[in-house]
C-alpha cells in the first residue's frame, strides 16, 4: 500500500520532468526534420529523430512499470534492410511512430497537471500531519474559520494531525488513481496496437500455410510412390501374365493357370489400393463420422480402447480427418513405442472447438519432436488448432488436439 502509493507519487512527479523533456524533443525534432526536409538530409534526420523518439518512448514504457507492475510491451516492427528510402517508408507506415509522438505531446499537460497536483496534495497533507511542529512559528490571527482555531491553538494543531492521519487513505487513493489513469493512457498509446498484431498474425499464417503446403506435397509424393510401387506394378504384372496367356491360347496351349495368376495379381492390386485409400481418407469417416471411424480404428488396434463422446457428433470434413489421424497415430505410437495395454480416447465438443484426447497406460517418454508427431502438428495447425503432448518417463502419455470448427 505504502509502496504502491509511493510509486504512483514518483510516477506522477517524474512525469512533470518527462513531459517537459518530451515536449521539448517533439518541438525540436519536428522543427529540425522540417527544416532539413528541403535538403538531402531530411530522410536520415527523420530516421534519427524517430530513433530518439523511440528511445524516449521506451523510457516511458519502463516508467509505467512503477504503476502497472510490468513494463509496456514494445510495438515496433523490424525495419532492417533495404535502402534509406524504404526504411523511412517502413518507419512512417508504423502507427507506433506517430503514437509515440502523440504520447510525448499529451504527456506535457498531463505531467504538468498531475505532477503539480500530486506535489501540492502530498506537501499540504504531510504539513498538516506534522502541524504541531511548525504551526506555532507562523501565527496567523486573520486566517478564516476554521483555519484560525486549528492553526493557532495547541489542541487545534494536534487536531490537524489527527485529521491528516485519518485522511491518509483518501490521499493515497487519489495518488494511486491518478497514477493509474496516466499509466493506462500511456499504455493505450504506447502498447502494440492492432497493426502489430495483424502483422504478426499474417506472418504466422504465412508460415503455417507454407508448412501445410510442404506437408501436402510430401503426402502427394508418398501417394505417388505407393501407387507406383504397389497397385500400378501389380496391374502391369497382371497385364503381362494375360498377354502371356493370350499367346498360349493362340497356339492352343493351356492357359488356365496364367489367367488364375493374373486374377490373383489384380486382387493384390485392389487390396493395395484399399490400404492406400484408408491412409488418405478412410471411407467410414465420410460415411459415419469421427466416432464410428475411431471405433473401427479401435477394433484394429492391439490395445483395449475405450471411446468417450457423442457418437452422433459430426464436424467439418477437414476437422474429422485431422482428428482421425491424430487418434490413428496416437494409438499406433501407444502400441508400438509406449508398450501400453489400454488407451482412453475422448472426443469433447466445447464452444466451437473439438478436443481429442488420448490417454494411455504406457511407459511414456515420447519425443514431442518425432517425425510422426511433427506431421500431426502441421495437420492440426493448418486448421488453427493446437497439439499438445505430455509424456513423462514412466507414463502416462497424454496426446491432445484442440481443433476449432
Amino acid at each position: 500500500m505504502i509502496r504502491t502509493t509511493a510509486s504512483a507519487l514518483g510516477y506522477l512527479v517524474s512525469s512533470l520532468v518527462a513531459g517537459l523533456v518530451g515536449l521539448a524533443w517533439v518541438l525540436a525534432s519536428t522543427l529540425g526534420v522540417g527544416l532539413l526536409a528541403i535538403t538531402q538530409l531530411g530522410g536520415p534526420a527523420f530516421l534519427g529523430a524517430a530513433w530518439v523518439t523511440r528511445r524516449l518512448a521506451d523510457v516511458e514504457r519502463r516508467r509505467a512499470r512503477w504503476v502497472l507492475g510490468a513494463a509496456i510491451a514494445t510495438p515496433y516492427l523490424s525495419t532492417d534492410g533495404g535502402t534509406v528510402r524504404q526504411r523511412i517508408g517502413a518507419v512512417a507506415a508504423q502507427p507506433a511512430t506517430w503514437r509515440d509522438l502523440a504520447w510525448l505531446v499529451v504527456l506535457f499537460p498531463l505531467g504538468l497537471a498531475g505532477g503539480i497536483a500530486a506535489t501540492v496534495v502530498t506537501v499540504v497533507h504531510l504539513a498538516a500531519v506534522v502541524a504541531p511542529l511548525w504551526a506555532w512559528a507562523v501565527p496567523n490571527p486573520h486566517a478564516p474559520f476554521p483555519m484560525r482555531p486549528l492553526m493557532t491553538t495547541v489542541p487545534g494543531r494536534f487536531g490537524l494531525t489527527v485529521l491528516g492521519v485519518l485522511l491518509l487513505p483518501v490521499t493515497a487513493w487519489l495518488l494511486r488513481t491518478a497514477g493509474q489513469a496516466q499509466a493506462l493512457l500511456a499504455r493505450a498509446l504506447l502498447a502494440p496496437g492492432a497493426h502489430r498484431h495483424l502483422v504478426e498474425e499474417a506472418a504466422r499464417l504465412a508460415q503455417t500455410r507454407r508448412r501445410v503446403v510442404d506437408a501436402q506435397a510430401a503426402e502427394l509424393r508418398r501417394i505417388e510412390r505407393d501407387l507406383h510401387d504397389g497397385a500400378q506394378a501389380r496391374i502391369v504384372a497382371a497385364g503381362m501374365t494375360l498377354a502371356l496367356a493370350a499367346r498360349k491360347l493362340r497356339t492352343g496351349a493351356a492357359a488356365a493357370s496364367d489367367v488364375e495368376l493374373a486374377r490373383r495379381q489384380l486382387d493384390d492390386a485392389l487390396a493395395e489400393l484399399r490400404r492406400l485409400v484408408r491412409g488418405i481418407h478412410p471411407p467410414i469417416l465420410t460415411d459415419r463420422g469421427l466416432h464410428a471411424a475411431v471405433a473401427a480404428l479401435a477394433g484394429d488396434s492391439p490395445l483395449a480402447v475405450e471411446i468417450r463422446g457423442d457418437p452422433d457428433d459430426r464436424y467439418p470434413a477437414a476437422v474429422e480427418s485431422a482428428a482421425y489421424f491424430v487418434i490413428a497415430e496416437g494409438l499406433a505410437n501407444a502400441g508400438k513405442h509406449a508398450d501400453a495395454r489400454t488407451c482412453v480416447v475422448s472426443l469433447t465438443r466445447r464452444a466451437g472447438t473439438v478436443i481429442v484426447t488420448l490417454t494411455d497406460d504406457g511407459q511414456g517418454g515420447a519425443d514431442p519432436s518425432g517425425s510422426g508427431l511433427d506431421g500431426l502438428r502441421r495437420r492440426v495447425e493448418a486448421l488453427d488448432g493446437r497439439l499438445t503432448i505430455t509424456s513423462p518417463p514412466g507414463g502416462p502419455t497424454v496426446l491432445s488436439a484442440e481443433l476449432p470448427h
Partner: protein
Amino acid sequence: MRIVIAEDLLLLRDGMVRLLTDTGHTVVAAVDTAPALLAAVAEHRPDLSIVDVRLPPGFRDEGLRAALTLRAGDPDTRVLIVSQYVERAYAVELLADGRGGVGYLLKDRVTALDDFLDAVERVANGGTALDPEVVRQLFTRNSRNHGVDGLTAREQEVLGLMAQGLSNAAICAALVLAPVSVEKHITNIFAKLDLPPAEDANRRVRAVLAYLNH
C-alpha cells in the same frame, strides 16, 4: 434366379450384369441410385438384390441404408452388399435382425467367380455370406478383448468360416477335417455361446451375431 443390381459405376454394373447373365441368372433391373433400388425391388420382387454400399447422390452409405430399409419393410428381402471396402460396423448392422438372407462382400470377390456365385446362391436361399476380410476384423477384435470366453483356436476357425457363410461340408473341405469333428466343434460353439441346440439356418447367423456382440 431373378436379380436387381444397384451400382453407380457403369463399368461395374455392366460387368456384373454380363457375369450374372452368362451364369444363367436374370437381371430384372440394374439401377444406379438408392431410391431407384427401392422402386425396382417393389416392382420386380426379385430373389436377390446386389447393392453397392456407396451410391449417389451422397456417395456415403446410401446403399447399405436402402438395404436396411428394404429388410425392415420385408424381412424376407435377400440383399447382398458389395463394396470397395469393408467395415465391421456395417456387418453388424446387416446381421442385427438375426434372420439371414444377407451378405457383405468386397467387390474384389467377384473375380473368384465360383465363390461369388456360391455366395449369391447362399444369400438368396436365406443364408449368409461375410467377406473373409470382415471376419478377420471381427477376430482381431474379439480374440484380443475377451479371448472369446473359452473358444479354442480351432473352434474360432470354424466359427470364422461359419460367419463367412460356409456349410458344414465346405468347412470340412477348408479345414481338412472329418464331418464328425466339424459337427462336434459347431455343437461346442453353440453351447459356449449359449444357443439352444435346435437346428435351422438362422441359428448359424445367431451364432455369428452372438459372437459379434460378445
